[in-house]
């Protein structure tokens, strides 16, 4: 079976006064029919920019500068190179108008973290939903209204016909997010991109929404890209997961092998740093330091400044995610040179390097503390104002 969405080597950069922010820097992944694919990573990893790039919604000063996005045989993003290596957008790309009229909302819908980004505060919730259905499903006003009320009920809004005329501010955060889910599903799109839709919500509300999404997904067979920083949410709803770090993919696997047969040191470290609801963890193991800024990413493997397994070779080589699964296992990609048999570099012969993880323990500052100290000088200095 072919994937419905193919993303290849996607690059989206922001051209700012301080320099080029390589927010998404060579990202590839697929989405198949009826699956929920997670994109997980810490803030600033490039998740939202990747999600917006798929919809071609990147705003100034950003632009998609490379790679391909194909959706059900149509080309959303593609580039051609001339003989001088100059890149231009390729002819086969859908026009802006086609994106607007055929793709966005109808074929691919997006849900943002802040529902107020998508709801207009001066119109009623029901009115906005009705209008959206009217325009996108070519039905009359009264039919659209009925559908809108049904959708509101389906996503769990109590007393939907009474609440139809309420304004967005009269809804709680959870209810607004449900309205957006109703809107996203109203045109029965093949793909919904959900960018941290439950991050601002309480766990009980999040639980209600995730359950609803699982039901609706079953009913309509929609595929989802679920963007989150929460490993718990990933574990709960995703079929496959992409782990992002600093604009690139670190690991991609089925959800079970990602958690139980982790192949990338970043994913490992991230899982180790989490306090758990289901068991008492006496000592947390933080990842040392902070994620460097995407404006000036480290050379070689982007995680090498914080990786406990980093070696000399990791400073020079930036590995792309390759399949490191064993025979008879499903594809499991990791961008880590430790997997020597696949990457064919001399990792084990290479010397371990000094980074933030190797700073020693001392009384006043534990290794974790020291990490934070070392990291910030170079990292945040670029924003100016540091007067040392």
């Amino acid at each position, binding site marked *: 079976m072919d994937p419905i969405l193919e993303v290849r080597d996607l690059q989206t950069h922001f051209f700012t006064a301080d320099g080029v922010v390589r927010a998404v820097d060579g990202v590839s992944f697929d989405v198949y029919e009826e699956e929920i694919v997670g994109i997980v990573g810490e803030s600033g990893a490039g998740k939202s920019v990747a999600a917006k790039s798929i919809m071609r919604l990147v705003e100034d000063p950003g632009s998609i500068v490379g790679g391909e996005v194909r959706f059900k045989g149509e080309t959303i993003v593609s580039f051609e190179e001339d003989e001088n290596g100059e890149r231009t957008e390729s002819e086969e790309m859908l026009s802006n108008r086609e994106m607007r009229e055929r793709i966005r909302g109808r074929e691919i819908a997006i849900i943002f973290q802040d529902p107020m980004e998508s709801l207009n505060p001066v119109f009623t919730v029901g009115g906005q939903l009705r209008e959206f259905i009217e325009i996108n499903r070519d039905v009359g006003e009264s039919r659209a209204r009925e559908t809108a009320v049904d959708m509101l009920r389906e996503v769990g809004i109590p007393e939907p016909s009474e609440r139809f005329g309420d304004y967005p501010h009269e809804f709680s955060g959870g209810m607004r997010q449900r309205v957006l889910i109703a809107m996203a599903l109203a045109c029965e799109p093949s793909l919904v991109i959900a960018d941290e839709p439950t991050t601002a919500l309480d766990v009980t509300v999040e639980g209600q929404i995730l359950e609803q999404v699982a039901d609706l997904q079953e009913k309509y067979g929609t595929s989802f890209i679920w963007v989150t920083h929460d490993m718990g949410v990933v574990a709960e709803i995703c079929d496959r997961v992409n782990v992002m770090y600093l604009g690139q993919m670190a690991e991609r696997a089925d959800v079970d092998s990602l958690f139980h047969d982790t192949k990338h040191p970043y994913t490992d470290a991230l899982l180790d740093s989490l306090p758990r609801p289901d068991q008492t963890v006496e000592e947390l193991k933080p990842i*040392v330091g902070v994620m460097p800024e995407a404006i000036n990413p480290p050379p070689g493997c982007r995680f090498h400044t914080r990786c406990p397994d980093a070696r000399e070779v990791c400073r020079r080589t930036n590995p792309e995610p390759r399949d490191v699964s064993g025979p008879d296992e499903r594809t499991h990609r990791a961008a880590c040179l430790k997997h020597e048999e696949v990457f064919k570099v001399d990792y084990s012969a290479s010397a371990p390097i000094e980074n933030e993880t190797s700073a020693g323990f001392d009384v006043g500052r534990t290794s974790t503390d020291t990490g*934070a100290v070392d990291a910030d000088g170079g990292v945040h200095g670029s924003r100016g104002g540091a007067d040392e």
Partner: protein
Amino acid sequence: MSDVSGPGEGASAGPDVAEEGDPLLRVEGLTKHFANDSGFLSWLNVERDADGVPVSVGREWVRAVEDVTFDIRRGETLGLVGESGCGKSTLARTVLRLVDPTEGDVYFEGDNLAALDGEALRRKRKDMQIIFQDPQSSLDPRMKVGPIVEEPMKAHGMLDDDGREERARELLERVGLDPQHYNRYPHAFSGGQRQRINLARALSVNPDFIVCDEPTSALDASIQAQVLNTMRRLQDEFGLTYLFISHDLSVIRHISDRVAVMYLGEIVELAGKEELYENPQHPYTKALLESIPVPDPRKSETRGVLEGDVPSPIEPPSGCRFRTRCPEFIAPEQYDLTPEEWANVRAFTRRVIRHGFEMTTRADLEAEFFTEARPGGAAGEALDRAFVLLERGEWDAAADHLRESFTEPSICAREQPAYEVDPEYGDDRHFCACHLQRDAEMTH
């Protein structure tokens, strides 16, 4: 480094001391109601009348915190967990007397804060510090880090200029920053580092007690772990007592010795950490624990889902405030129903109240809700009446009728629950505000 020492060092003030009867902080019947006039005439706000009773002439009251009682032992961390808007921050601010309580008392080191006058209260405040969630806005962007850390010392007239600077530099180091950062501005720091600056600032006046209001909620997982570890280390080094507020049950489990669960302004359960997580008794605590996503796909099958929304704190439900959503809401004694019959009645009642379905025919509804276990007798007659009203399209009347028949007579709607439970883990008291414990001993 001798200068920067807490009362915990040297002195024997660990959590193992003062086991019984010597709390650092005692909160008794603390209540905070806010007047809910929006703008117009709100300067007229009088929050209490002469008798301390809220004046409610044409005015709505947000009952943000209601009759909260607990104590915190020296050296321990009490976790306070609950959903957004349940009153955690209001409780914290009222405990510290940053806002005046509507009712109730707070004793700190034995002194009733309400009885202290301005100057005495100000001096007491030195021993009680607070750290807020948003490290961005809690630091003045125009001040350098050093003066930020020194500010509380200045306010309390501690040390001279040089002494303060020396102490600030030492504190920066103690919280895991570089003393060289003394001359930087906050914007040059990451979120985790800003929270460390906040810690240094709070520690500067050598407090005994720190209220931490969601101190790591804005941080990424890996950074959160760094800050939590630092907070623990500082607690040992300075002999600190924490009231640690969070909506994150995983963080609370990691950091706390005992845990209080709050719902709609009230503490519904309070117990030792292991006891609360391994032997929760209150249906709300259970629902919360079941709804946290566990970072393990092999364990996430059984996420429980709580129905409905949190009601408004302006008119909270009578009796048990959780009753409108409680999956175990107790049947009124006047009916003799099997558990299955009662479950059906409860589900039906709530769906009618929520308008959760379209009226079809009575037969369809009977089939949807009462195929198995349809109650007879008085309960059956009450249901018959509701169906008649629904068939006439009188939703509100049907809802009212069901409320009167099945909700209001329940003990859950009539009496405020407060019970002690025998703990299975450890021997800290286990308080549970749920009538399912009514065979156990009454607290009040």
